[in-house]
């Protein structure tokens, strides 16, 4: 359980300590890629809670979403259309939805637990 969290911390530490920077012209792509990655992450958590988690879907979704978002932004820049907005909008909405679902599932579980406890105490 703690292993994924350790991975996140390790990645953050590595990035902050090595002080890697990207050219400012690629900043947009990276920000969209981060958004796509966060979307996939929360989608994965939601799927796990709903017990429909699939490893292949998660990993492929992660890379595919990143590439798609960055590609969309790239095409948008070249065509003069702010296509990255589409990616931001789509991922943003999904992110909120996923988090809302996660919240609900957790609340339901909490309720169930409490219910069970009161039941056992009555018995």
């Amino acid at each position, binding site marked *: 359980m703690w*292993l994924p*969290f*350790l991975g996140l911390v390790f990645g*953050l530490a590595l990035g902050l300590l090595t*002080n*890697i*920077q990207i050219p400012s012209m690629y900043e947009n792509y990276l920000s969209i890629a*981060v958004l796509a990655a966060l979307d996939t992450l929360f989608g*994965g958590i939601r799927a796990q809670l709903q017990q429909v988690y699939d490893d292949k879907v998660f990993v492929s979704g992660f890379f595919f979403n990143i590439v798609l978002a960055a590609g969309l932004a790239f095409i948008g820049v070249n065509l003069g259309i702010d296509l990255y907005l589409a990616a931001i909008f789509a991922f943003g909405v999904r992110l909120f939805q996923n988090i809302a679902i996660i919240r609900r599932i957790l609340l339901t579980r909490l309720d169930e637990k409490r219910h069970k406890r009161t039941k056992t105490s009555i018995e």
Partner: protein
Amino acid sequence: MKRNMYTRITIVLFIIGLMIAVQYNTIQKPAERDTRDIWAIREELAQEKQRHSALLAEIRSLHEVVDRYEQSEKVNQQAALNETLNRLKLQAGLTEVIGPGVVLRVEPAPELIEMGYEIKEISPDLLTQLLNTLFKNNATNVSIDGNRVVQTTAIRDINGKTTVNSIPLSSPSFEIFVGTSDYKAAQKMYNSLQASTFIDSFYLDNFNLVIEEPIEQLQIPAFDQPLTNDYLAEVKKGD
């Protein structure tokens, strides 16, 4: 199976963390961009070059001193030491200097006196600014109203009197002697002062700044007060 899943999620989270950190770095500390154009870079290069040549000249003169010491080691060490001492005294402004230079006269504007204007003391700020400009234009020795300007000279207002080296100026009319390295430099100084805004700035304070033609033999007095070194300490023998 479950272990495999955790490994993959860990890798994905590691990438996410790295991406977030890189994005954070890029936003927080953007690499400073060099926005200078060719001209600005050339000017900077010229400045550096000037410094380079000044340093080389200094190295050469120090080499000469070393040579002289080495040569005179057997003959007369005292003479070499005296020479160095005199050179350092000259640099510090402790000796009288005769050489090419420009004389500036600061006098109250006569028409304003006739109109009944009250001529006040010259402001230390204006004088300091003039001095800065003189040194920027390669002045080697400067004296204000007979007071030699050295490294520790202070121009300030003491009880309403403008003083140089704590000696009040014989305001309102006094002379500033500006010594230069050669006559050409004196001419250059004269021209740049004529082109500067100082004449107008002095007139704002009701003074006329008269810049006289450069002369070959200008006598600049020595600094006649004891030099105090608050921060320098004598090196002990053998150190």
